[in-house]
């Protein structure tokens, strides 16, 4: 019992003694576990919403649309014969349609959208149930003369609800209901409005004639894509349910991909960060362990004290991370309105909590292992005498830096003592900038190819939210990382800085030098992050047209990053520079 008290007391004393470090470690673990929580919660919420919708709406296996004839040719007043012929093509067991499709202009809620620009289509339907593709009404009622039903995603986009009215080519229609369908992709695609057939036909103009749409059921739904390909001609465009489903799933996939990639990046950064934290404490802990052993502590006691400290930190960090994740999950996972059975707010399951805790405890155990082994193996005397790792000589840097102005000369030499830490700082900057650039590219890509009429696609919004949260967490972590590394650098170079000042270096020179020596390599990392981020984005979206954020936004990102790093590195150095030189030299024997 007494021993437990000793272990507890020693561990907590140590944590409070190194307050800043403890807080940083907690922050890092919290950030990593928060993202992990999000990742687990969202990936647990995958159902197959498209399949649900398809079942509930008697979704077609193939949807065929006649193309509007090219300018000059006469527009058909009825469905073209080759489309009608498909009703009885081999392999077809059922159909609905052909339905007229009109492309008027729309005014709703202050938005003006030209259908001709691809914003939406108007499909004319019978008021009775169709055999194939009967959209499921979620709110309100099905079409009737003078009333329109709006596809759910598009209704969200337009911000309309049953009872509102919409102007189509100048005619007012009341919104009768909101429905979902499996015949059209609900994302990255024009919106859909349903009218009665007569109303739809009334919207045809010589300039914008009708096209026709046929929904087919096949004997072999699995072969729908082959069927669609075989029947696509100059006049007809056919899509299989698999193709439609693929379009739809993209939204959710993108969301998850963003999160998975983000979680990976974050975990890497977090582990790197913790590695630096632990490495930075090794010498200090060895000395403490030596002290413990000198007064009779066994290696096991030493290990227990170390482990208790790390466990406490990991536990508190994981709790905070879980709490943050729990708060953020509902914000991120607004279900896709266009599909029924789409994931609701994922909940934090016991399994998620367990995994997150296990990871945090794993981190604690791993970070205890090296110092504990070292403390156990090292002779007590050696541990007591253990100075912080003595700086390695870098002859090339020393020689080259002689030609630099005084601040850079000092900075380069001081920072070059810990090349691994510097590398980590550079990598951390590169990863952060890459993420920000990828998000910028995503925004750019989705505003260029986005929905016409200044509307925002809800799925794009959802992905964008995920990206923003991941990016914010990443940026915070990177900032913590940078601040910690700068702070550790200042602590370690305190003596050398004091000596340099004793021989005439001003605090400003030391501060500027230390900061510049960290900002300049980070600038390289930041620059490397730009192509990495653009590449990242294209990797995540599986090809497609090349998208690059504007030069202005890239430049702003780089400048902002470097300014933040400059501030984060300069502040600890400047604070240290306020201590009189004599105090540092007196308290520390080289």
């Amino acid at each position: 019992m007494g021993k437990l008290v000793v272990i507890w007391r020693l561990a907590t004393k140590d944590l409070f003694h190194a307050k800043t470090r403890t807080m940083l470690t907690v922050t890092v673990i919290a950030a990593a576990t928060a993202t992990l929580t999000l990742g687990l919660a969202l990936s647990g919420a995958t159902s197959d919403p498209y399949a649900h919708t398809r079942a509930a709406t008697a979704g077609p296996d193939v949807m065929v649309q006649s193309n509007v004839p090219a300018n000059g040719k006469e527009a058909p007043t009825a469905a073209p014969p080759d489309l009608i012929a498909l009703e009885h093509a081999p392999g077809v067991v059922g159909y609905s349609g052909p339905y007229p499709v009109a492309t008027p202009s729309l005014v709703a809620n202050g938005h003006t959208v030209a259908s001709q620009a691809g914003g939406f289509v108007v499909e004319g339907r019978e008021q009775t149930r169709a055999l194939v593709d009967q959209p499921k009404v979620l709110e309100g009622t099905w079409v009737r003369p003078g009333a329109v039903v709006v596809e759910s995603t598009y209704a969200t986009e337009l911000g309309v609800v049953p009872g509102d009215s919409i102007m189509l080519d100048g005619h007012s229609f009341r919104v009768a209901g909101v429905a979902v369908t499996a015949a059209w992709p609900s994302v990255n695609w024009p919106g859909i409005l349903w009218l009665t057939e007569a109303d739809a036909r009334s919207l045809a103009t010589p300039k914008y004639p009708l096209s026709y749409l046929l929904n087919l059921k096949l004997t072999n739904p699995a072969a729908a894509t082959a069927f669609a390909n075989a029947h696509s001609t100059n006049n007809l465009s056919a899509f299989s349910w698999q193709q439609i489903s693929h379009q739809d799933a993209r939204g959710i996939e993108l969301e998850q991909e963003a999160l998975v990639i983000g979680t990976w990046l974050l975990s890497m950064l977090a582990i790197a960060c913790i590695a630096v934290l632990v490495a930075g404490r090794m010498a200090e802990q060895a000395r403490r362990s030596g002290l413990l052993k000198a007064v009779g502590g066994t290696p096991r006691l030493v290990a227990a004290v170390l482990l208790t400290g790390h466990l406490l930190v990991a536990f508190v960090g994981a709790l905070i991370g879980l709490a943050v994740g729990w708060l953020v999950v509902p914000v991120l996972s607004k279900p896709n309105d266009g599909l029924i059975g789409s994931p609701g707010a994922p909940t934090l399951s016991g399994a998620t909590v367990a995994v997150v805790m296990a990871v945090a405890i794993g981190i604690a155990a791993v970070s205890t292992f090296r110092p504990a082994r070292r403390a156990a193996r090292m002779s007590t005397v050696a541990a007591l005498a253990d100075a912080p790792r003595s700086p390695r000589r870098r002859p090339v840097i020393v020689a080259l830096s002689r030609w630099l102005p005084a601040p850079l000369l000092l900075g380069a030499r001081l920072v070059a003592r810990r090349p691994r830490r510097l590398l980590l700082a550079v990598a951390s900057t590169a990863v952060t900038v890459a993420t920000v650039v990828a998000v910028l590219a995503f925004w750019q890509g989705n505003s260029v190819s986005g929905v016409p009429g200044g509307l925002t696609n809800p799925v794009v919004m959802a992905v964008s939210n995920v990206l923003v949260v991941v990016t914010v967490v990443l940026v915070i972590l990177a900032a913590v990382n940078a601040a910690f590394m700068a702070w550790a650098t200042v602590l370690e170079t305190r003596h050398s800085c004091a000596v340099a000042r004793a021989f005439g270096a001003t605090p400003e020179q030391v501060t500027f030098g230390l900061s510049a020596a960290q900002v300049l390599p980070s600038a390289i990392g930041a620059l490397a992050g730009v192509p990495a981020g653009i590449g990242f984005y294209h990797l995540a979206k599986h090809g497609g047209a090349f998208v690059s954020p504007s030069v202005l936004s890239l430049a702003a990102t780089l400048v902002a990053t470097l300014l933040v790093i400059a501030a984060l590195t300069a502040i600890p150095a400047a604070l240290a520079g306020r201590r009189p030189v004599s105090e540092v030299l007196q308290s520390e024997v080289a």
Partner: protein
Amino acid sequence: MTNPARVLVRAHQLRKDYGHGEALVRAVDDVDLEVVNGEALAVMGPSGCGKSTLLHLLGGLDRPTSGELWLGKRRIDQLSEQALAELRRQDVGFVFQAFHLMEELTAQENVELPALLAGRSPRQARRRARQILDQVGLADRGGHLPSALSGGQRQRVAIARALVNEPRLILADEPTGNLDSAATLGVLQLFETLHAGGLTLVIVTHDERIAATADRLVTMRDGTLVDETGLVGGTARRG
């Protein structure tokens, strides 16, 4: 009263406090002191009496709580940190008991550093450092790291570093405190040579032999100067 033109360092009612209230420590307590050009002054006294603190004040490593401090014709107790740094770069050279060499720099590079900080070209700095290392008898050790040098050699490197910018004043805080008697002798001879060359020296020491080579000895107790002796055996003063 000494001829004012010859006074290099003048402290008037110099005071340095650490801490506040109950924990207040008056490390230097209203010290009046003058050091003339070319003089070698030894400061002795029991541990904790404020010798190091006084030395740090004289060299602008720290600022006094109150009082006046002059270096030549310039008042330095109120200078900004920037100005103090320039002062340390140009006018003062420090030698510490703990050497305070940079472990990852060779002897040569350690000596060069203040010259580079003072804006000398790397070539000039190198030449000057070689010359001074030669002067302190370490011409063949320039490429060694401090860890490969003996204590006495390290202190001579530190002295060379203090001399590299040709300061007017050398301040040494127990320069032989970490050395055995043979090494002490080497450092002692070096200081004598410097003194004979006209340099002004203030040396804090516990070593009677060092004190004996000075022109003048002051003793401190509890932050004040209690006793001042002109030493007969001291090297002749120069003006």
